Every structure is written in structure tokens, then in C-alpha cells.
């Protein structure tokens, strides 16, 4: 192809990729919800657990403090912010203390005798009413009397106040100027996001909207808005990890470009080297759109990491060009082996398809399609576009020296066995724990951020994010009955300081049975009138003052009990709706806990209730899920390894040659893991993915070193290609290993370490160095 034709070809290819990228970007839905990457829940309990892990009400809370302005300005800012957030679809709730509970909602007012616990202990008879009326007389003499006068005629026993008290959080902050103000002169607020706490992208969007709403308020410039909460911390960590990853990959890309210029002395190579990988990645994404519709963020992150092997394909082609032959001759020479590497990797990833975990299936589809397309692009699209003028690397004096040095390197036969023994010893004696199941440990929150979150949470009396009390029953009403049965136990916990507060669903709505029994205790009109008249004797209340009370009690006798469905439409209904959850015909009462001091005491409830109530520890539950997920990955990797062995064995039809390729790869993987473990690193999913990428690269090194070649020139070209590949991988991943972000460090250090071991062991165990090896294989 002419120089002009090549230029047109490269430009067209890039344009096509840009178009494809545009199309994919507009159809691909990236889902950042960690749950879709977990094994599918097998029963209703697990479904609830999965919901709560990413979706629990406590994980959706954003806690806010406004400071730096005088108190009256703070109150105005607090009111203004709540007002804006209530109008924003991204938030389901925004509170700042201004919502008065004293004024019971008109819809609930008639139900007060059914909702309040007064009638459980008392009857509206003469002695009780007399005692109440005498107290009301004293109330009228107290400085706060005027607030009472309005409700007195309807509610002389003050059931509305009893309900307001019951529904007020036990640890609400103090009010000043009508809003919550902390002792540090900050206005405190809580907002609940619509998006789950783990959806870092949606959380970041909600936080940006919140900041914009605050900045738009008058006088906001003088004040400072502090935000915290699980979603906020998650979004912060995600943003800093992304910024760090982008910075390091920019440096890595520049380093890679310099490496290529040094290795091939050609600038046009730079325009070509990324094409197969980019084509593969886009094809993989397109396949995901077609097959799944949406992709999990982690699938993409893991998928792109695993796709790193495809970066080697064009490098092999560049290094294997031969002086004096046409541009495709070198490709034809290495293609059978490259094809073997690609096909065997794809066969191995088939194991992920069979895993049954949606996240892993997506990973398999992406990786297989991407590798096949990157390989095909390298074989058929790349060669015609290669620059005509090039340098045959076989002629490089440096390569000749390197080849001699490697050939002369001692290869003690015992070395692999010693390495194996050392690796096993290291694994055996490595400090516990072997696995890191806490995904959060790889993305740790800054301690100052956590401390601030803890302070705000305590000041606001916001529920604990880790623990949840779960009630199981067959219906919503049965959950409420269960909740009533354990309320005495819960009060004991609170007085024993095992927990600060427990928001049982029955605190909001009593069961039907309880409501009916209270209703049954309400006297009829004649009885009540007689009791009230007797109770009023000699008391100075105006005659007929309590007629509304008599009417209300009469009306309450005929009400049908308030059901959860009706209650959910009242202003407090959202609270109850979030607590009563139905899954597959079973009902769950999710009870928020505030300030858990002694989880072991709370955990005892399971035994007392025969398992109907249990303490859910979301941290340990999510760790269990991660462990299950890892088991699936390990099984899939095990099957993948067997498939790889079969594929390589079948391709070679020679056990010795297969052994020379697979043994260094396996041993190097083991050594990389052993070094990590000996350094006390507990292994996470990210380490597993990194080890898998390194193994894919190591397979290439071993396959190419083991390849029988016609002459020393071709062996030098193989060495050159491999050295460029190793240098590129160590450069890019070594940079990641310097990161302060644990996730990036885990991936970077593991791949860099693995690649180094794979290269060394390939030169030791797979490399053909002299004719004796050829003879040995032939014989």
C-alpha cells in the first residue's frame, strides 16, 4: 500500500472507532450498583440483604452542617436549603427540625385513640378522667398554657402530644430559631437521596446538586456547607481514585510512547499501536450492549484490565517484521502462535460464562469478544497499514548481546523446584488473613472524613449504617404484631445502654389487633358523658367545653383500624413504607438502630424469637457475599486453567512442549501470590483479576520463547518483542503500584510483580537456547 493509502487507511480506522465509541457511549448504560456484580440472591432473605447493602435507608443519608454565619442567618440558610432539596427529584426527604410533630396530621387525628398506647393501661372512666382534668388545670396555670388551649376541647387526655413524643427521635438535636442547631453553632440537616448509597455516580450528582442549591441561596457565600454520609464518602473515594488513575495512566501512556519510539524508531507506529486494542474494547462494549443492555462499572474496570494482554498483539507484529520480505510475512510467521494464545485465552474465559454470576458473565462476553476482535484486527487490518520503512530488530547489536547473555545464563534444573518449595513455604507461613473480604478496605475512607461522619451522625441521632434489626412474618400486620411483642425487650436494651434507640415499626403504627383492643375499650357516648360529668364536678372548666372530645371518641369507636397502606399516605407514611418490605410473599420489618453499643446483646433476640427477629450486620453480611463471590471466581478460574491446559495440550499434541509453556506460567503466578502473601497482603478480588492478567501475559512470553524458530534472527525478534512487552507492562503497572490508592496499588504491584516472574521463569524454563532442546523435543 502507498504512503497515501496507508494514511487514508489509518484515518478511516480512527474515524470508524470514534463513531463506534460515540454510538456505544450513547447506548451503554453503566450501572454502578455493586449488587449487580454479586451472586444472584437465592432466597428472599438474601434479596432483602442485597437491597439493604446498597439501598438501605441509612446508606442513602447525606448529613449536612452549615457553619460560619450568625445563628439567625444559619436558620434562614437551613430553611432555604431544605426548601430547594424538597423540590429536587434526586432527594426523597430533606429535614432540618422545622417539621412540627405537635400538629398531628388531620388525616390521622381521628385515629389518635387507636394509635396512642394510653388505652392499653387506662380506661376513660371517672377516676382516670378526673386525674387528667386536674392535670390540665395545672397545665393551664403553667407558662406554656397558650399552646395547650387549642387542643384541650378535643383532646383533654393529650393523646396528640403522646403520639408526637412517641414519634420524635430520642436523640434529635436542639432547636434554635426553629431549626436544628448543634452546640458548635452549626445548622444540622439530613437529606435522603433517591439513588442507593453505593451508586457513586448518582451520589456525586446528588451532592453536586446539593452544593449548587446551597450556593444559590442568599448569604451562602459567608457560610460553609459540610457534607458527610456513606454516599458522600463513597463518591469522594471514587473521584480521588479516578483522578489518581487518570494521572498515572497519562504518565504511563507517555512512557509507553517513548518506549515504542526507542524500540522501533518510528513515529507512525504510535498511530497504529492502539488501534487493535481500541477496536477490541469497542467491540466488547458493543457486545455487552447487545447481550445485556447495561454493564456494571466493575465489569468495565476488570474487563479493561484483563484486556491489557491485547496490547501485546501489535507489538509482536512490529517486532517480527523481517528485512527483505513484505510487510505481512512477519505476521504470517507469528500468527499461528498468536492465534493459539488468543483462542486458548478465550476458551479459558468461557469458564466465566458458566459461572452463573451476571457480573462474571458480562466480563466473559466483553473479554472474549474484545480479544477476538483485537486479534483479528492485528492479523488482517494492521499489516497493510504498517510503514514501509522499518528497522529489522534482528540486526540490533543490543539484541545480539542480550540474546548471548540470556543463552549463557545458568539454568539449574533444581531452580523451579526450589522456587516452588519457597512459594509453598511462604504461603503456608504467611500472616493471616488470606482473603480481604471487606471491599471497603481497598477504598478506605480518610480517617478525618469518618470522624466527621461519626460526629454528625451522633449529633443528628441518625441511624447506624452497619446494624439493622430484621423482623420476619407472613404479612405486614404480623410484622407489626411481632414488633409489639419485642418492644418490652427493646426498652430493656435501651435502659441497659446496649443501644440508644430502636425505631420499631410498631412505634409508628400498632397492629390491627392492638388497635381493635384499644377501640373496644373506648366507652359509648352515654358512659363517657356520665364519667366526664362526674370527673368535672367542682372543676372550673366551662360547661360543654369538652363536647368535641365526646364526639371524637364516639367517631373513633366506628373507625376501621388504620392499615399500613392507609398510614403510608400520611406525612409520616414514608418512614413506615421504608420499614415494611415485601419480598416473594414474605414480609420484613427493617428496624433502624441508633447508637449500637453492644451488638452481642441485640443478637440474642434471634434465639428468643425462634429466628423471627434477627440482628443483621451489614458489614459481615456483605463480606460473606464477597467471599461467596470469590469462591465463584476461584471455581471459574480453576475451570479456566483446566480449559487452558487442554487447549494448549491439544494444539501442541505434545505434553513436553505444553509443559514448557504451562509450567513457568503456573509457577510464576504462584510466586507472585506467594510474595504478596509473604508481605502480609490479604488477597482481594482485585488481586485475582491482576494475577489473571499477568498469567495471560506470561502465557505469551512462554509460548513465544518456546516456539521453534528457523534461525537466530527470528529468535532475536521474539526476544525483542517480549522485552518491549515486559518493559511496557512493568512501566504501566509499576506506576500504578506507586499509587497511594490501595486498589490501584493492588492491581499495579500484582501485575508488575507477576510479569517479572513470568519473564524470568519463561527464560529459565520455556526458552529454547540451543540445539540440544530441539533434539530433545524431536527425540
Amino acid at each position, binding site marked *: 500500500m502507498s504512503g497515501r493509502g496507508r494514511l487514508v487507511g489509518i484515518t478511516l480506522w480512527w474515524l470508524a472507532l470514534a463513531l463506534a465509541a460515540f454510538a456505544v457511549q450513547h447506548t451503554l448504560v453503566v450501572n454502578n450498583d455493586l449488587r449487580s456484580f454479586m451472586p444472584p440472591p437465592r432466597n428472599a432473605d438474601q434479596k432483602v440483604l442485597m437491597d439493604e447493602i446498597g439501598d438501605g435507608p441509612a446508606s442513602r443519608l447525606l448529613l449536612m452542617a452549615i457553619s460560619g454565619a450568625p445563628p439567625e442567618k444559619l436558620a434562614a440558610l437551613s430553611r432555604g436549603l431544605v426548601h430547594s432539596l424538597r423540590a429536587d427529584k434526586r432527594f426523597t426527604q430533606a429535614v432540618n427540625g422545622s417539621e412540627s410533630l*405537635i400538629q398531628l396530621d388531620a388525616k390521622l387525628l381521628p385515629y389518635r385513640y387507636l394509635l396512642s398506647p394510653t388505652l392499653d393501661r387506662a380506661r376513660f372512666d371517672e377516676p382516670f378522667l378526673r386525674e387528667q382534668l386536674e392535670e390540665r*388545670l*395545672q397545665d*393551664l*396555670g*403553667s*407558662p*406554656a*398554657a*397558650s*399552646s395547650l*388551649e387549642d387542643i*384541650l*376541647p378535643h383532646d383533654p387526655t393529650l393523646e396528640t402530644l403522646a403520639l408526637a413524643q412517641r414519634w420524635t427521635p430520642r436523640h434529635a438535636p*436542639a*432547636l*434554635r*430559631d*426553629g431549626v436544628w442547631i448543634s452546640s458548635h453553632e452549626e445548622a444540622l440537616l439530613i437529606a435522603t437521596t433517591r439513588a442507593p448509597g453505593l451508586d457513586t455516580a448518582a451520589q456525586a450528582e446528588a451532592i453536586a446538586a446539593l452544593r449548587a442549591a446551597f450556593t444559590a441561596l442568599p448569604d451562602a457565600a459567608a457560610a460553609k456547607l459540610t457534607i458527610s454520609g456513606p454516599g458522600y464518602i463513597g463518591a469522594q473515594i471514587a473521584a480521588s481514585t479516578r483522578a489518581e488513575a487518570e494521572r498515572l495512566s497519562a504518565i504511563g501512556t507517555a512512557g509507553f510512547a517513548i518506549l515504542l519510539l526507542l524500540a522501533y524508531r518510528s513515529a507512525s507506529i504510535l498511530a497504529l499501536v492502539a488501534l487493535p486494542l481500541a477496536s477490541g474494547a469497542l467491540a466488547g462494549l458493543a457486545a455487552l450492549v447487545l447481550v445485556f443492555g447495561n454493564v456494571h462499572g466493575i465489569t468495565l474496570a476488570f474487563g479493561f484490565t484483563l484486556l491489557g494482554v491485547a496490547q501485546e498483539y501489535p507489538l509482536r507484529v512490529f517486532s517480527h517484521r523481517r528485512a527483505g520480505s513484505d510487510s505481512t510475512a512477519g505476521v504470517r510467521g507469528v500468527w499461528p502462535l498468536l492465534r493459539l494464545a488468543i483462542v486458548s485465552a478465550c476458551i479459558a474465559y468461557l469458564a466465566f460464562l458458566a459461572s452463573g454470576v451476571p457480573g462474571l458473565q458480562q466480563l466473559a462476553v466483553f473479554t472474549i469478544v474484545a480479544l477476538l476482535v483485537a486479534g483479528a484486527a492485528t492479523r488482517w487490518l494492521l499489516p497493510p497499514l504498517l510503514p514501509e520503512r522499518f528497522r529489522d530488530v534482528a540486526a540490533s547489536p543490543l539484541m545480539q548481546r542480550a540474546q548471548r547473555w540470556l543463552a549463557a545464563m545458568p539454568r539449574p534444573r533444581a531452580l523451579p523446584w526450589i522456587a516452588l518449595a519457597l512459594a509453598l513455604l511462604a504461603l503456608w507461613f504467611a500472616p493471616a488473613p488470606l482473603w480481604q473480604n471487606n471491599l471497603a478496605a481497598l477504598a478506605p475512607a480518610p480517617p478525618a472524613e469518618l470522624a466527621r461522619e461519626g460526629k454528625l451522625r451522633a449529633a443528628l441521632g441518625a441511624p447506624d449504617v452497619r446494624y439493622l434489626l430484621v423482623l420476619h412474618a407472613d404479612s405486614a400486620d404480623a410484622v407489626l404484631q411481632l414488633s409489639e411483642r419485642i418492644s418490652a425487650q427493646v426498652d430493656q436494651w435501651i435502659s441497659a445502654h446496649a443501644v440508644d434507640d430502636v425505631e420499631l415499626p410498631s412505634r409508628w403504627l400498632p397492629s390491627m389487633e392492638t388497635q381493635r383492643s384499644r377501640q373496644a375499650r373506648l366507652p359509648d357516648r352515654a358512659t363517657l358523658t356520665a364519667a366526664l360529668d362526674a370527673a368535672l364536678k367542682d372543676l*372550673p*372548666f*366551662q*360547661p360543654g*367545653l369538652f363536647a368535641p372530645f365526646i364526639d371524637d371518641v364516639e367517631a373513633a369507636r366506628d373507625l376501621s383500624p388504620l392499615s399500613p397502606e392507609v398510614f403510608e399516605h400520611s406525612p409520616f407514611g414514608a418512614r413506615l413504607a421504608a420499614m415494611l418490605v415485601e419480598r416473594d410473599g414474605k414480609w420484613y420489618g427493617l428496624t433502624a438502630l441508633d447508637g449500637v453499643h453492644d451488638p452481642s446483646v441485640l443478637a440474642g433476640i434471634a434465639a428468643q424469637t425462634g429466628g423471627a427477629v434477627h440482628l443483621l450486620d451489614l458489614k459481615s453480611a456483605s463480606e460473606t457475599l464477597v467471599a461467596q463471590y470469590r469462591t465463584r471466581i476461584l471455581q471459574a478460574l480453576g475451570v479456566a486453567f483446566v480449559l487452558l491446559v487442554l487447549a494448549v495440550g491439544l494444539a501442541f499434541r505434545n505434553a513436553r512442549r505444553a509443559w514448557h509453556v504451562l509450567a513457568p506460567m503456573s509457577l510464576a503466578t504462584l510466586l507472585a501470590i506467594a510474595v504478596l502473601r509473604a508481605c502480609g497482603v490479604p488477597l482481594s478480588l482485585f488481586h485475582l483479576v491482576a494475577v489473571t492478567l499477568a498469567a495471560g501475559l506470561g502465557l505469551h512470553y512462554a509460548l513465544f520463547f518456546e516456539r521453534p524458530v528457523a534461525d537466530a534472527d527470528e529468535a532475536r525478534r521474539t526476544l525483542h518483542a517480549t522485552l518491549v512487552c515486559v518493559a511496557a507492562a512493568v512501566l504501566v503497572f509499576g506506576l500504578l503500584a506507586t499509587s497511594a490508592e490501595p486498589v490501584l496499588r493492588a492491581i499495579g504491584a500484582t501485575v508488575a510483580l507477576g510479569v517479572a516472574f513470568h519473564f524470568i521463569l519463561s527464560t529459565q524454563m520455556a526458552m529454547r537456547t540451543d540445539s540440544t532442546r530441539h533434539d530433545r523435543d524431536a527425540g
Partner: protein
Amino acid sequence: MTFGILLPALLLAATPPPDAADLIARLKRPVPASTAYTEVRFVHQLTRPLILRGELDYGGADKLGKRVDAPYRETTTISGDNVTVTRADRTPKHFDLERAPELKALMGGFSALLGGDAAALATLYTISLVDNTGGWTLTLTPHDAAPSAHLREFVIDGAGNEPHCFTLQQANGDASVMLLGPLAAAKLPQPPTTAALATLCRAP
């Protein structure tokens, strides 16, 4: 420009009349101060007024106590925004002053009055002073209708440096007259109407 002209006028409006300011400064009580009282409360929901006897305690800005000794025992303490009501052998009830805005407005007035702070009082109330034969009558009318919708006016009767009566007139017709110091032990007019009590408060 306009602002330059308005500012002195605004300052003038918020300044109490000079003789009232002088009187208020003289009403300042040393901390802590306490005085016996007899309170007659007129509540429209009741057929006869409530009569309470006890002691008022002033503990400095934002600290006020009211003890009822008869006909029942009750102690109300207000400290900052926290109100605590303790009745005989019951567990104390706590509530936030924010929950009772009219009480909060009243509290602000009391603090400013007992602290002798005429300027602070003038930010909350319009102040007028009338001299009468036996002494003087200081009338405080809230500026801002919203937070003190219940309170129409707050009248202090006294002579020399001594307040004799606090009278709270509420918008709904309810009223409370507190007879202080020596007057607390005086014989109440029968029947104890607001008019009869006003005469008692202004008697020389």
C-alpha cells in the same frame, strides 16, 4: 444617600423614650434575685380564675425560675432554650423554648427588663411609660406580631424602683396578673377581676 437619612430615623425608632430607659435601668435586679408572687390567671376555658402562689427566681440573662407552692407544687425553670417543668412526684418534663414561641418572646422581655437593658427591650417591644398617682405604668407592646401572636401587651406597674405587678394580656382575652413582693401577700379583691387587680397594682 437615602440610607444616610434613614439610618438616624431607624435608630430613633428603636430607642426607648428617655424617661422609660431611665426607669428600666433602675429596675435592674442584682443576680440572683427572687420574689414572692401571687398570680391570678384568667383563662376563657375556665369559669373562674386560677390563683397560684409561689416564688419567682431570676438567675441572670436567659435564666428564670417560677415555683408554684399553692394550690399544688410545680417548678418551671427556663435556661437558655430549655424548659423543664417538674410537678410534685412526677418525672420532670423537658421541652424546647422553640416549641412555645409566645413563652420565648415573654422570656426575652423578662430577661431584658430584669437586666435593666432598655435597648434590648426596645428591639422586641414598643415601650410607653405613664406616671400615675401611686407610681408608674410601663406598657410593652410586641413589634412583631408573628412570634408572639398570643401576647397582646405586657404591663408592668410599680413605684420608685420597685415593680409591683406584671400583667400579661393575651390576644384571645386570656390574661395573667402577677402581684409581686409585698403585694403577693395582699388580700385579693373579691371577685378578682382584671380591673380590680389593676386598681390594686396602681394603688399608692
